[in-house]
């Protein structure tokens, strides 16, 4: 229990640091949102109205310290303010509208990539020295290739040339959102290509990570012992070796779950997917402080929670962490 309490204290401190950085970083960008708006809307807005707009957007000239205190106070009340880009929509609404798309797409894709990748890693370690090793150079290649490159290649081949899959948006234009089979089918159809992108690009990590740890574990005495006892190779592979080898992979999985919320910004941009990554890009382009702060906050909290869950999982899976207190 003392272990958990200490971890919790650590997380609170990290959360405060993250919240403060969220406040600081957007303000380090040059320029200010209203100037940008005027520059972009050349001619459609009278520069003399700038003060009025500043007021409307809630941009204050107060000292940074005052703004920081206001920001903390608003956060305590769960207020994220109104977005400037999507004025007058509340930041919380923007996030609530886009988060499900990201969590749905990136979350499911991450899960699939984890399951397939880990199993492949286990099998490849078990059958090392066979033809399966041929997968390795491929995995190393995929490991090195950036997300968006895979995305562009898939768009080009399956979207534009073959036209098998749609290349943008989250569901068909003529489909009205709702709890209908048509909507669900449309969402799945549109998510296919971006999901494949994420699975392909992130699976290599899992395969390589799992295989390497597994190979080491297979040399351990207890594995030799299990084999000597005459257990089925299936049992040795999964219950003895894989179960022990999976620990580092759990950590990386928990971490990537945290980053699910951050989305795969580039994948979302290439596919015009209305997730949180696209919103973040909009926010950065427009120096939309409230929106950036809100999204960063959600992302950092998600990473912290995921880490915490990983810690908990360790306590359950690895008895050594429990003994530390004695």
């Amino acid at each position, binding site marked *: 229990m003392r272990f958990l309490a200490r971890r919790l204290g650590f997380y609170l401190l990290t959360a405060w640091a993250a919240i403060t950085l969220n406040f600081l970083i957007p303000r380090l960008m040059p320029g200010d949102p209203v100037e940008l708006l005027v520059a972009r809307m050349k001619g459609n807005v009278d520069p003399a109205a700038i003060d009025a707009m500043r007021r409307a957007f809630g941009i204050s000239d107060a000292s940074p310290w005052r703004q920081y205190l206001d920001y903390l106070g608003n956060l305590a009340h769960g207020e994220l303010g109104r977005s400037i880009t999507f*004025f007058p929509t509340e930041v919380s609404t923007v996030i609530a509208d886009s988060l499900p798309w990201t969590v749905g797409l990136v979350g499911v894709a991450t899960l699939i990539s984890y399951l397939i990748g880990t199993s492949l890693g286990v099998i490849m370690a078990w059958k090392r020295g066979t033809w399966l090793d041929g997968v390795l150079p491929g995995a190393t290649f995929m490991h090195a290739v950036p997300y968006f490159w895979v995305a562009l290649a898939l768009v080009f081949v399956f979207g534009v040339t073959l036209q098998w899959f749609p290349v943008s948006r989250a569901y068909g234009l003529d489909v009205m959102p709702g709890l209908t089979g048509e909507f669900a089918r449309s969402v799945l159809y549109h998510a296919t290509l971006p999901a494949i992108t994420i699975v392909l690009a992130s699976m290599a990590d899992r395969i390589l990570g799992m295989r390497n740890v597994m190979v080491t574990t297979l040399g351990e005495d207890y594995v030799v012992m299990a084999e000597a006892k005459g257990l089925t190779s299936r049992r040795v592979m999964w219950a003895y070796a894989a179960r022990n080898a999976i620990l580092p992979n759990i950590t990386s999985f928990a971490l990537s779950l945290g980053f699910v919320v951050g989305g795969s910004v580039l994948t979302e941009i290439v596919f015009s997917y209305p997730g949180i990554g696209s919103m973040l890009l909009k926010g950065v382009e427009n120096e939309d402080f409230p929106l950036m702060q809100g999204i960063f906050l959600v992302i950092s909290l998600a990473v912290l929670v995921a880490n915490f869950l990983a810690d908990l999982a360790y306590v359950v899976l690895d008895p050594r962490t429990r003994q530390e207190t004695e």
Partner: protein
Amino acid sequence: MSRPASRIAAVLAALALAGCSGGGAGGGGGSARSGGAPPLVIHAVDAGTFQEDFNPYHLEGVNFGTSGMIHETLMYFNKLKPGEITPWLALDHKWSNEGRSVTFTLRPGVKWSDGQPFTADDVAFTFQMLKKHPQLNRNALEIEGAEALAPDKVRLDFGATSYAKLFNIAGSSPIVPKHVWEKEKDPSTFTNPKPVGTGPYTLSKFSAQLYELVKNPSYWQPGKPEVPVLRFPAYTANALQTALRQGEVDWAGAFVPDIQKIYVQGKPEQNKFYFPPEGVVTLLPNLTNPVLAKPEVRAAMSLAIDRDKIVRVAERGYTKVAHPTGVPMPGGEAYVPPEYRDAAYKVDVEKAKELLKDVDPAQLKFTLLVPSPFTDWVNAAQLIREDLAKIGITVETRGVAFQDWVSKVGKGDYDLSIRATASGPTPYFQMRSMLFGGLAKPVGEAATGNYERWKDAETDRLIDAYAATEDETEQQKATQGLSKIMMEKAPTLPLFYSPSWAQYRTDKYVGWPSEQDPYAMPSPYTSPDAAVVLLRLKPAGS
């Protein structure tokens, strides 16, 4: 318009599209067909998703079509033919009290889309609201009061002479219904989800990816509009390139990197585009720099720059070299002194060198600041660098982030830069924003115009003279004086016109604006011009 995003995305799209050919099945065409005439698919602004916002006084979140198609203005000003003003909800206007009051006579028989009559109360309410909520007053009108004198007469009072603001008052302030809006406590955050307007269309469907406007059956122009349904799908900049290629969009306002290949596809009669000037892009010299403050240095630079090449190479021929006064031509003739009407730029390196002979060559070193996402301006900057090197001026081009560029140019922290100037219904608006001394802020303070920081008593006198009269000839005379200053003193160096992007297909509807008939700005993102265009469209083949 989110320009940097569209550029980056366009590059991505070009990558994705490179090497592919052939048309494709038009997926987004749509199923909703009412009557015989097909719906028109419009892309006004890059968006991944739409917010449900139809408040015409919001700046960016508001969905296109809100002003013009749903909420109308009192008059329509054609920016492509300065001085051409069409009565719209108001039949006429009369100034009084030395330009501090204006009385409008309203069009009889106009109804709101919910059946209520449109009256002077609605107009008075709209302007009172702008006074009460300065956040909505994006035209910066100095409203003192608004009073309905009769059901068809309304008088607006201003704190200052406002002749020059007629466009802002009557041409860009959409009228909202009092009986709906007076119930809203805070109109500045009101999103107007069920808009009631006098315009030719009403909102019929809204989702985050698509909204649809349908014909208002009781519209005051009988028999119009002839396009029954408008569909606005959400396309991001790169998705739009694919959509244009596949023929999903009938009317768009977008930068297309290779328009012949991506959009025209060998059918110039059907897949048309028209990019008329909307303001001018100039090479800004920072006049607080003592070397650039010398008129002969600016004149020499202007003589050395090959603008034809910039337009051909950097701008892909999508626009035209600016008239040396910066006034958009054709259309702006009356605002240019007769002796300069046929003036044009001509490169003359020898003369430029001659002008610089008394300037210490060691001083002729400048940095040219450009926003790196605007790839066309970056290319233009390289060409300018090469041209100026020929006359002994060393230019270092520096690309910075869009935000950084806005901030540095605003504060006067640069030597040379490239920037577009705001435009208006007459060239005066552009001149004022380029040259008015009142806009020149000290270096370090963000300016909202006159970024080169030009200060000249004669310029300010002419700008005041324009604003002090409602006589068109007097106004033209004042603007001619400003044009002369542009020609002779070169406070900033016009390069080329900023194009207004418009792609339209003629397979469903005809009657679009063109170079031969520029009756309105052709881009779907210009309000209320887009509504004026829609009212002129007729089904193809009829």
